[in-house]
């Protein structure tokens, strides 16, 4: 069915207000949109890795989740939900569950790229019918903005601080989306909530209703960690996409498809400038670091275009 923005607004909300995420946090925006892609009649079991989203959305006795929800630890949302999915398969086979249930895991980049990576890889390989959604805010925000393997190069975090000798994080961001695609699972996509949310909604719908494991990597800005003015979140997401820092694409049964190609690819300064975590790059002596960042983004973009048959 073609995407109808206004119709999606009529679907019931499955993630409520009253959670304790920061004002202007990107994660709940991602969660709301992903869950909106569920058919209203379908029940969902949601697993959540320890992280900002978890501690803020499930403070006893107040749960922001209208579906069934489970948190157990930091590194194992994928394993936890795979157990629930196995229970469903078994009980359904035995005729004890008459209705369809969907399985979705949410983790931040810490719980996904790093500590939860093994459990994620295992669950994907085993082929559970589930979606793993990484809301990627590019650092361990819950514990106070420490670097993760998703943190971009040069970002200033509390464990990769920009100092007089070392200009922030020294390593490039891990390309998890491609790593997940290499698992050979039926559906992998990189997305972001932007404009009329079509991209994220449609990818969520495909991920949820594709039989077998699916992975979504979704950019989720963090005003505290990235140090930008809270209200500009949506603009910042657009800049990430238009600079090709965060390209939108999907990998369907192994085939790469580009979801969006900016008409005018913007320079990375547009992305770096509004964010306090990159402030040190704008000192005159660090110009070459911005050039390096640009060269890296260009190469990655080029590689992606080739993979997508766009070049």
């Amino acid at each position, binding site marked *: 069915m073609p995407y109808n923005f206004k119709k999606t607004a009529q679907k019931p909300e499955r993630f409520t207000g009253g959670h304790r995420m920061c004002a202007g946090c990107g994660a709940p925006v991602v969660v709301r949109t992903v869950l909106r892609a569920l058919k209203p009649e379908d*029940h969902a*079991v949601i*697993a959540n890795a320890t992280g900002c989203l*978890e*501690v803020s959305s*499930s*403070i*006893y*006795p107040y*749960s922001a*989740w*209208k*579906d*069934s*929800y*489970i*948190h*157990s*630890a930091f*590194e*194992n949302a994928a*394993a*936890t*939900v*795979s*157990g*629930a*999915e*196995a*229970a*469903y*398969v*078994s*009980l359904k*086979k*035995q005729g004890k*569950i008459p*209705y369809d*249930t969907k399985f979705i895991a949410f983790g931040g980049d810490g719980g996904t790229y790093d500590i939860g990576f*093994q*459990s994620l*890889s*295992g*669950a994907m*390989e*085993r082929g559970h019918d589930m979606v793993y959604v990484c809301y990627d805010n590019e650092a361990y925000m819950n514990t106070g903005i420490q670097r993760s393997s998703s943190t971009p190069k040069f970002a200033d975090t509390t464990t990769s601080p920009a100092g007089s000798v070392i200009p922030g994080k020294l390593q490039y961001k891990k390309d998890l989306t491609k790593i997940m695609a290499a698992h050979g699972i039926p559906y992998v996509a990189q997305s972001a909530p932007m404009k009329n949310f079509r991209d994220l909604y449609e990818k969520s719908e495909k991920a949820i209703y594709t039989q077998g494991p699916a992975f979504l990597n979704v950019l989720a800005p963090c005003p505290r960690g990235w140090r930008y003015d809270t209200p500009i979140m949506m603009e910042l997401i657009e800049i990430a996409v238009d600079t090709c820092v965060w390209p939108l694409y999907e990998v369907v049964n192994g085939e790469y498809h580009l979801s969006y190609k900016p008409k005018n690819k913007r320079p990375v300064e547009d992305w770096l400038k509004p964010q306090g975590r990159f402030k040190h790059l704008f000192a005159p002596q660090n110009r070459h670091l911005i050039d390096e960042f640009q060269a890296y983004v260009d190469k990655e973009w080029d590689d992606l275009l080739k993979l997508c048959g766009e070049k």
Partner: protein
Amino acid sequence: MAIRERLSGNEAVAFAMRQIDPDVVAAFPITPSTEVPQYFSQFVANGQVHTEFVAVESEHSAMSACIGAEAAGARTMTATSSQGLALMWEMLYIAASMRLPIVMTAVNRALSAPINIHNDHSDAMGARDSGWIQIYNETNQEAYDSLIMAIRVAEHADVQLPVMVCYDGFITSHSVENIMLLEDELVKNFVGEYKPKYSLLDKEHPVSMGMFDLPAFYFEHKRQQAEAIKNAKQVLIDVQNEFAKISGRQYGLFEEYKLDDADIAIVIANSTAGTAKDTVDMLREQGIKAGLLKIRLFRPFPADEIAKALSHVKAVAVMDKAEGFSAAGGPIFVDVRSAMYGKADGVKVINYIYGLGGRDVGVYDIKQVYDHLQKIADSGQVDNLYNYLGIRE
């Protein structure tokens, strides 16, 4: 009609699991428990069970998947040993605290380092305060029986806690011995249907589990959990009495062997208890009043009952197959001695660490312990409180 069979401990436990027919089993191979999921996956492959078998990529994920499955209302089981149990550590506490009645076979093996695949109780003893109910077992028969009973204890409304059924790696797990098995129907009826109060799969009543507790509630949840494990003692007694009716085998919270008139006694868990019974018989033939108390339910610890059972003895040696590194005795010793304080004060209590990393212990090794106890009983003096059996000095 009971079925006379000969099975290894692992075969017996896998057999029990087939009869229990859990909804989900998630497990990862580790010596010496590997055979349990291995045998069980064959039952799955042959369509003999309804179970969804999840061959996870680690023990941490095994316990995580068990948590997800049990939370989803599935009767869930697993098995592990040693490092596997250690890797599960974080999730053991979470399983217990989320009040999920998972039943696990823990085939006891030493912990690294140095790496060692043989038997001692370091693994399970390390998990003794994780909130799991722990039942230790001497033989394949006892392990089989306990596993079936564990389902009932775990899922009981007054308990709602996971249970760990422990037995010795290789000695019990890989040794083929006689066993009496129950018929499938009998086990099926005994364990009954699993009807959890809350389930993630209950569409009509969606729930959130694994919530974040602020200080206003965490303490209350722990108090509630403490009550649940306290309840497990009476529930186990009831379940064991019921089990005796279908099996003819009556179990207690612990087993007393020639203890009622004993002057000297040892307290011991798992397979070496059998060896020690032979020692007791040998000593009894020599007119020495030796006795034995075999640990069965270790968590919750039946402190009052054990203190009472030992109160008339002159000298007791508590045998630990784990070095607790407290420098004040092994884990069973600490609990037994603490239980006896104020209740059996006249009794001299010493500790022996034995059998670490598969160090074999025979009838005559145990006799040395009784000889030591006899000396203490005769003199009324404890020379050494902490002792090592069979170590090269």
